[in-house]
């Protein structure tokens, strides 16, 4: 794994639509259920999200056999711009997901950063960053 940025996980997509309709899809519970885990293999999702700063959410993803629950709290919600929420699952607790919407050529860039160490001190030292550790791992396998 070779990452030049300080975040271990960052994904983005350019969507040809306006910010308002993307923001709506990211926050309207009924719409969230349609895209969040409505996968092809019989998966579905139930979403209860109170999308406002300090509001909480619960997202259940159902396969035919099991339900995987995720929950957290919205840390920051700026209409049509930015959503920050904590993410708890069976595997991780109090990780933080940040979604930002930015105007770019061809539409809106939806950028998602999942930070697995949100309590880390803010000092950014790239030679000492934790992706350096993962780079070390890659070098040793």
């Amino acid at each position: 794994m070779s990452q030049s940025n300080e975040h271990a996980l960052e994904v983005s997509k350019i969507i040809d639509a306006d910010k308002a309709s993307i923001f709506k899809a990211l926050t309207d519970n009924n719409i969230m259920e349609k895209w969040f885990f409505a996968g092809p293999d019989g998966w579905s999702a139930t979403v209860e999200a109170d999308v406002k700063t300090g509001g909480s959410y619960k997202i259940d993803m159902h396969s035919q056999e099991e339900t995987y629950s995720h929950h957290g709290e919205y840390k920051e919600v700026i209409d049509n711009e930015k959503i920050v929420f904590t993410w708890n699952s069976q595997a991780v607790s109090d990780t933080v997901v940040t979604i930002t919407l930015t105007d770019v050529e061809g539409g809106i860039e939806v950028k998602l950063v999942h930070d697995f160490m949100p309590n880390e001190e803010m000092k950014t030292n790239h030679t000492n960053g934790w992706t350096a550790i993962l780079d070390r791992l890659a070098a040793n396998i």
Partner: protein
Amino acid sequence: MLDSTLYALSDSTRRSILLSLAEKEQTVNEIAKPYEMSLAAVSKHLKVLEKANLITKTKEGRTITCKMNYGPLTEVEALINEYKHFWESRLTELQQFIEQSKKD
């Protein structure tokens, strides 16, 4: 288990210790040398790393040597890759949903 690994990795001193152990095995004194902190403080960090199974200590006489373990890092990397795939799929579905609803 992953939580304890992530916790152990969340401190820059501990990451720096791990990076130096990735170079070679070292005694506790050797590990402590570059840091302006007490041996006790370094030992505390080593304890956290050991609890997360990121290092193994071996004792020979009075000397304690630390060795890095890559196993837990492999799990962290697998978790990140899993989530990366997960979020990429979510954003793809979001895009498809929005583009489909524009057509309708």
